């Protein structure tokens, strides 16, 4: 590590500090867990009611046949972007500041994708037939329609979840091995099993390093493709406000933007409660802040493009749709989104803001709100004022879909809160890698 401060922890410190995060949690943790579990239960009950009585329990209607479920689906998929982006793309770019946050980010990715993956099921009118979307030989001699963006979604998301999980697990193996060797009792036995007998021998490391690099190389285009494919759910449709080639980069950028915000929301409390200030330092926060700022500015640019193309197209229906969104029933949502996504990140131009956990936390929450509403604004108002004036209408959320959406946050947090207590939320190996390797002869230090 270049700044080579005296306080720089040793390898043993790292192992100890990480192991410390896995000590039995206190009452605060359990009270949080119970609150989250309660909300989750309410969400599950709401879903059960919706399955039993029908999709009408959710507030959907003609013309908004999609609404909060797909909004939340895209939102969570977007959140799921930061993890693999950090672990794959930043790995390939050798951005060393990633190491202290990437484990948490990866876990977040997997849980976010798992949350997102629920929504197509929640959304489907007959979710018990959702397996029709899977390509497998069946007695009907009938296959899915590979021309449908929804089937692309099935492939993209299941691939993304698989590869992210693989990536995550591969990254975890040496860490679990390290924990195995410092723990005792049943934990040791469990870790021993999960570590697959990792020993850190050179014959393992050489394949491991190569495999990890290759996975990163595969995951990099995957990260970019997943949200592109999700964006095509909209871009491939005719609906004014959806039918745009802008959508793929627009969605990918938005995904990274919201993903980093979520990473901060998870990492900042972790840093505080686990006292990981030595590993998640101000420069890390600064780097994250910069990324949020940049992606936010790019997003602003895309918003402007969207408005411009709509106005410049000469398409009256597109223009009417835009005008309606900006001024009518859902205008508050649109302006809220502009404020959260375009204005609030501007504060990060100041380095003081970028290194202040409080400011970062507030901005991150605003960004998440803004990004949820971005998807809402794409779906609900666009559908509400499309080609056919006869069916124009306003969507009102119902208790059922509101509860399910809130429940999805509970589901995500219950997974994440569970994870940080049983698995190393800080990468033991990679943090050690960034430390100066122990040298007897200090003249070697700093070389890399």
């Amino acid at each position, binding site marked *: 590590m270049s700044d080579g401060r005296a306080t720089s922890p040793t390898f043993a410190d790292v192992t100890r500090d990480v192991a410390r995060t896995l000590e039995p949690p206190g009452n605060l943790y359990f009270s949080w867990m119970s609150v989250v579990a309660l909300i989750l239960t309410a969400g599950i009950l709401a879903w059960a009611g919706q399955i039993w009585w029908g999709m009408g329990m959710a507030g959907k209607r003609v013309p908004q046949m999609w609404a909060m479920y797909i909004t939340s689906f895209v939102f969570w998929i977007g959140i799921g972007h930061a993890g693999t982006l950090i672990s794959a793309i930043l790995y390939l770019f050798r951005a060393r500041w990633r190491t202290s946050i990437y484990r948490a980010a990866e876990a977040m990715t997997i849980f976010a994708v798992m949350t997102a993956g629920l929504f197509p099921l929640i959304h489907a009118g007959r979710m018990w037939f959702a397996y029709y979307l899977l390509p497998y030989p069946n007695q009907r001699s009938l296959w899915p329609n590979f021309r449908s963006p929804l089937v692309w979604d099935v492939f993209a998301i299941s691939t993304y979840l698989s590869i992210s999980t693989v990536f995550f697990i591969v990254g975890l193996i040496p860490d679990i091995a390290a924990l195995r060797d410092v723990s005792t009792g049943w934990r040791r036995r469990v870790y021993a099993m999960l570590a697959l007998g990792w020993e850190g021998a050179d014959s393992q490391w050489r394949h491991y390093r190569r495999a990890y690099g290759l996975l990163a190389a595969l995951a990099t285009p995957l990260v970019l493709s997943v949200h592109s494919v999700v964006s095509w759910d909209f871009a491939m449709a005719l609906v004014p406000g959806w039918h745009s080639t802008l959508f793929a980069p627009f969605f990918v950028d938005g995904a990274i933007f919201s993903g980093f915000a979520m990473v901060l929301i998870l990492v900042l409390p972790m840093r505080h409660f686990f006292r990981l200030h030595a590993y998640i330092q101000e420069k890390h926060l600064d780097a994250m802040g910069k990324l949020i700022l940049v992606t936010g500015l790019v997003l602003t640019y895309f918003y402007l493009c969207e408005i411009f193309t709509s106005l410049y197209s000469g398409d009256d229906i597109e223009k009417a749709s835009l005008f309606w969104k900006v001024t009518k029933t859902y205008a508050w949502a649109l302006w809220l989104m502009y404020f959260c996504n375009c204005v609030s990140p501007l504060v990060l131009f100041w380095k003081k803001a970028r290194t202040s956990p409080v400011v970062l936390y507030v901005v991150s929450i605003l960004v998440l709100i803004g990004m949820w509403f971005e998807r809402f604004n794409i779906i609900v108002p666009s559908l509400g004022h499309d080609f056919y004036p006869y*069916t124009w209408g306003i969507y009102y959320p119902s208790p059922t879909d509101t509860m399910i959406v809130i429940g999805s946050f509970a589901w995500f947090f219950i997974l994440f809160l569970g994870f940080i207590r049983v698995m190393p939320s800080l990468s033991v190996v990679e943090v050690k890698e960034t430390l100066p390797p122990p040298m007897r002869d200090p003249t070697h230090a700093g070389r890399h």
Partner: protein
Amino acid sequence: MMNRRDFFRVVAASGATAAASGCQRATETILPLVVPNEQIVPGVAAWFATVCRECPAGCGVIAKNREGRVVKLEGNPDHPVNQGALCARGQAALQGLYHPDRFTGPRLRDGAALKPVPWDAAQKVVADKLADLRSAAKGQAIALVTQLETSSLGALLDKWTQALGTRPRVTFEPFAYEALRAANRITFGRDAIPYFAFEDAEVVLSFGADFLETWLSNVNYARTFARMHTVRDGRAGTFIHVEPRQSLTASNADEWVRNAPGTEGQLALAMLKVMVDERLADRRFAEAVAAIDVKKIAADSGVPVETIVHVAEVFAHGRPGLAVGGGMAVTGSNATSTQVAINLLNAAAGNVGKTVRFGPDSAFGKVTPYAEVVRLADAMAKGEIEMLLLGSGVNPAYTLPGGLRFADAVKKVGLVVSLASQPDETTALAHIVLPDTHWLESWGDYSPREGVSGLMQPTMSPVRDSRPMGDTFLAIGRAVLRSEEGKGPLPWATFERYLRATWEPLVRDGWAATLRQGGVWKEPAPVVVSTRVAPADVTPPKLEGEADGFALLAYPSLRFYDGRGASRAWLQEAPDTMTQAVWDPWVEIAAETAAKLGIAGGDVVRLTSPHGSIELPAYVSPTLHPRAVAVPVGHRYAPYHVPRYVPAPSGPKSPVAMLGAAAESGSGGPAYFGVRVTVARTGARQPLAILQATHDQEGRELAQAVDLRAAREQELRGREDHEAHLSMYPDQQYPGYRWGMAIDVDACVGCQACVVACQAENNVAVVGRAQAAYGRGMHWIRIERWAEGEPAHPANLFLPMLCQHCEVAPCEPVCPVFAAYRTDEGLNAQVYNRCVGTRYCGNNCPYHVRRFNWFQWEIPTPLEVQLNPDVTVRQLGVMEKCTMCVQRIIAGKDHARDDKRTVKDGDILTACQQTCPTRAITFGNLKDEQSAVTKLARSPRAYHVLEEVGTRPSVTYLRKVVREHASR
């Protein structure tokens, strides 16, 4: 016919198991017939001809019987009145047949409730009471009221009243057009309502006559009107309508003249005056209009002099023309004189005998005038009536004006017997109910006009324990007279025997053929009438109520008529075309009035007349005359609608509750236009369930129009070539047929018949008020109303919108499981059992014609018996939409293959096409160069809705043709 009863029981049982089974694995039994029925082959439809009795128009109907149950009604193509078409009410008659509220047997009042009782006991109560009254020589204390029964049943009941010595039978029809009869008596010396030959007219001038909605025989007149008005070979008739309210009929006029309420008669005279002055009419009519001041009439009616002159000129130049009066124009205090003025217009233009034809006179001429009903009610109020017998189809407690206080009067009657088959406001007051069979289960005959005698036969065995009214009366009559079958004045065992005996001399051995045809028809000899010209004076209408109140227009509803249709959920859910409102009743308030009183749409307002008061949500109309408010007659809910589909209503909703009792002096008819009401906000809100978000097309050219002159020119030149469709992909090939549809926007009058027909054919669910209001209605076809031009005086275009079966369908490629795909025959198919319910297709359809099953829609028993067995009942969570009646296509191909030929025009009619009174819809094979649909698709008027989206629909629309002078 035959012994179908056992069969029905069997099928009903297996039908119930079929409906209940989602994925059941329980042992299922299949039951064979005990004795074969040669008329019915399971799986093959049998058709029975009969006559529709949903209103007195008497259209011919053929009922499709599958496995012993009627599943669909269609117009009888051979019947001269409706010529194969049927209106929304006729289509919905099935819901009366299978009505969940139908009495399951006779009922006897026990305190507040009606309790089941055996037939014998119930009939004995009636017979005993009759016998008592007879022995007390109180025959005149017995009254029988029935709906209009023109033929055998009426004759039998008259024999019955004579035999028992009761008061003469009273025929009660709320809308009986007494003023027309009275005026014809005055002008032409004939107490009859003639046949109006719209088909032969060049110009139709209507004073309030809603002939496309309820007037006399709406299907008949819609069909003939379409023949007169639709562009053919560059020629088209003109239709001018005078009414204070823009009704559906007014919307179809080339020129709608908005007048002050009640000034129609004066306007007719002013027009006659113009014709006389401009020598467009015979001089002898000058005498009639000598005292007429056109300017004053223009000022009183609010119609400019130029308009009066122009209309008169157009009308006079029609060779022949036709002037008709109806609706509010001929039910006020000046109704008869108004109609006399209209008669004079016809006479002056030389239309009598040409388009106004006496001879084939309407059955409405046989209705007992309303004045008699008033007299009966008075007698009841005085306690002179001790027994009141009410035939099925009459509901006086609901339909009689509130001023008559019928409900109070009826309480003075010792025994009230109703033969209604389902509970209504009148059975609530009855002591005994002896449920009549539904007309689809009954023998009978009906003659809607001279020369047309429709024969009715049971099309299935009774759904509920009920007895034909004729049988009930015969049994009671014989019990009173203590005579046996075959003897005495009422010897017939059943009404069927009597009917056969009556028809025997008429048809001889052609009974079976007559049954098949649905009756006998011949052209009666025309009756020549002479016109009596006398000075005419139409006084302004006298309206009860406060002078600063608003004239109440209580008009019959297209969907419910006098309220008979309102118990059918299908009709409640089919929107009123003008307001696009479902379920709720409303009061139409002019925009100026609403602004003045601070009323917004959906505000509940209280209307008060000297006779009563009702509370209704407001519909703010930019078109209504500011001195009027309008409330449709006929809105009511059946018991099973509440609270399943609508919340329980508070208080009466029918405008007749506010009307006065007095009959019009000239004709003895009721005054639906007779009171002024005050309008007051109640502070409550009840937004109407309106399906159409806006009537403004916002420049999207969904419904298009073309000028008549341009249409003519195009017709001569042919259609300009369209740009070739550009694609990087090869076009789809159609190895066999390619189905397509053409819809003539010029012909569509917006009557909603197709909507209900589709609902009946395709098992489309009813969702109720709240769901429909929230965009969750299930109709596969909808009639849109698009208003063009200035809001106060718009030209309305009616656009039937259904699945466009696009060649490049946006809905298909987005479906992940091929539930939506395009067939080899050019249909946009929806496979319900494959559908997962992603609803992506519904978003991506630019026409929004896809419907999603948000819930498992309930089908209250026994309505499930009506379900078309050829169409899957959709489960919750699946998408559905118009299939172009694919089950009919399959059946049509099957029949053609039986004959070893290909399908030709007319083999396959979609349900909407089949019922359309104006033949606006054409379906056929687009690959057949000679088919009607191909020719229409190449018409110069042809266009596609949202053509620029590039979906290449298989449904072609033909532009509406507007007339140059239609501006005003």
